[in-house]
């Protein structure tokens, strides 16, 4: 399902060799967006001051603002965006389904359920604690889906994983809504979190998930070659000597690491993992050795810009970034899908 449009574009792009340049350009855009995001806000801080705050922190008001509020926030956006986008790419290849996203592994539903359950049982508290519950819930749900999907004689089929994911996600979402419908306090406390937000993140929170995300990103980039083989379909992959069961499991482990960390850091942002891989594939073609790094940078860029836009346009510090990513990304994605996907008929 993914192959037809990817392959055509890949052929178109193969000769011009513009990809390294494109990646560099995208990366520069990301750096610019990060700097802009650090400098602007309710109080404008010149870039020089931002730089001094990072290299020579002196405890002044502006330095505190940069180091304690803006930098953690931008870092969270970068980490979550790149992790979600890369795990989305991997999911779409592993399931061979354009509708797949990390959410299909039950990551979002598991994290939301764990957070809501803990809030209901033990009352609402600070964000630090929820991170680990979210991570645990996401991981447990994803392992369950993977276990169900590869269970049985015709296991390791993509359709098994897809249906198992839909079933587990439906079940957990139903449990979550059952709790929220009867418990208004929890609904009030959790609704901003479920929208996806990077407001008020601390350096400690970033540091806690950064190792997982960086490991996952490194592993994900290394997976590129195997994803190309997986994306060719079961028979081609077998004839090329790939052990699909193993690589599919490795891929899913990477997805759990990445998306689980991202969700615990920024809440269940569905859009990035679903759409950024499509945008990248529609733009540069289906060579996954390139799709992965492009998605990592592109996902980070989208979330940083979305967070910046939420602050600047809507003038609110806690406008949920999950909303602005869709508002910014969806029109672009729709245009791409209309002009490039699926051929004339």
């Amino acid at each position, binding site marked *: 399902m993914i192959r037809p449009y990817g392959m055509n574009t890949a052929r178109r792009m193969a000769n011009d060799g513009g990809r390294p340049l494109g990646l560099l350009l995208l990366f520069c855009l990301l750096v610019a967006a990060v700097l802009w995001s650090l400098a602007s806000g309710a109080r404008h801080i010149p870039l020089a001051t931002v730089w001094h705050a990072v290299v020579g922190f002196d405890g002044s008001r502006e330095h505190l603002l940069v180091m304690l509020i803006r930098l953690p926030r931008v870092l969270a956006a970068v980490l979550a965006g790149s992790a979600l986008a890369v795990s989305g790419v991997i999911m779409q290849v592993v399931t061979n389904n354009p*509708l797949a996203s990390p959410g299909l592994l039950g990551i979002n539903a598991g994290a939301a359920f764990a957070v809501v359950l803990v809030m209901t049982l033990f009352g609402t508290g600070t964000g630090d604690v929820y991170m680990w519950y979210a991570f645990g819930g996401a991981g447990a749900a994803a392992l369950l889906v993977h276990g169900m999907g590869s269970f049985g004689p015709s296991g390791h089929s993509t359709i098994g994983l897809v249906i198992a994911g839909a079933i587990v996600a439906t079940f957990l979402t139903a449990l979550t809504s059952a709790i929220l419908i009867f418990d208004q306090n929890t609904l009030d406390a959790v609704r901003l979190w479920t929208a996806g937000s990077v407001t008020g993140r601390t350096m400690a929170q970033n540091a806690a998930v950064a190792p997982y995300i960086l490991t996952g990103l490194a592993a994900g980039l290394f997976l590129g070659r195997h994803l190309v083989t997986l994306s060719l379909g079961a028979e081609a992959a077998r004839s090329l000597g790939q052990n699909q069961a193993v690589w599919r499991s490795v891929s899913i482990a990477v997805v759990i690491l990445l998306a689980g960390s991202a969700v615990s850091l920024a809440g269940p942002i569905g859009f990035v993992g*679903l759409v950024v891989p*499509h945008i990248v594939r529609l733009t540069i073609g289906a060579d996954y050795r390139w799709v992965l790094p492009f998605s990592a940078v592109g996902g980070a860029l989208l979330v940083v810009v979305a967070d910046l836009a939420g602050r600047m346009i809507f003038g609110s510090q806690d406008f949920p970034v999950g909303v602005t990513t869709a508002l910014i990304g*969806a029109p672009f994605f729709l245009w791409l899908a209309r002009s490039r996907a699926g051929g004339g008929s």
Partner: protein
Amino acid sequence: MTRCLLVLVIILAGLVIASLALGDVALSRQDLWETLTGSHDRTSRNAMIVFDLRLPRVLLAALVGAALATAGTITLAIMRNPLAEPGVLGINSGAAVAVMAVIVLLQDPPALLPPVAGFAGAAAMAAAVFLLSWRGGTSSLRIILTGIGLGSLAGAATTFLSAFGDIGDVQRAMIWLAGSVYDASLAKVRFLFLWLVIPLALAWMASRELDLIRFGDDTAKSFGQPVDRTRGLMIVLCTLISGAAVAAAGLIGFVGLVAPHVAGRLVGPSHARILPVAALCGAILVVAADLLGRLVIAPVQIPAGIVTGLIGAPFFASLLWKRRHARG
């Protein structure tokens, strides 16, 4: 096939009878029989419970279930994607954002407005997805991608409203959206039935076209099928059917996704067989979900849409996995 239909009809009939008899006031078999055959007068307490409260509710549940399952079967065939359900066309997200907007922005809307808004939102969204993905023809991939894009825009609007709306309104909208058949009346049932009967019949008559289009656009074309027109008409049918179901009962998820898969495993790939079996499975699922939802922790009623997820998901998981093992 006949045996399978018969078994499903018997299960459905059993569930309907149980729904009529069970509840806060449990009726004995004899009471129920006498009430239904009308040997008591129609104004007695039992008659009121059965005819005014329970019968409309169980009929509405069955109709909604059959409608969702049929719409799901159609979507599965025209999209050729195992994850395709009417939501792919933007129907759910369109209805959700319209209802959320009406309830949160208007504070206290008249009772008729949310269902109408739900249908209008669903229909507008499906039309937008289809038109935006049309480029000299249709392609299932382009429809899916457009559905994702427009769906996430609508989802963002819903999230925004639910994050900043009044908490009471948000909760009310969530309950509506969770999918329930609380406020059924015979008038509502009659309207939904008349609305659905023609699209459902058309869907069944088009089962050969669905068989063809499922093979892929090229194959279907070489058999002389006007693929684009068929897909367009099917999307219209699907919108009429599931939009009405959503307006009547909110977002009861999962039925449209799973009923066609189950039916396919029960009776094979022919849509002339799948459609009626899927409709029966859907009806059974929603009726059972509503029954359980009002019995389990009575007097609290759990919306049917939540029960389909809680009970239906594990149940169908076991069913699908058992069939798979049986086949080897």
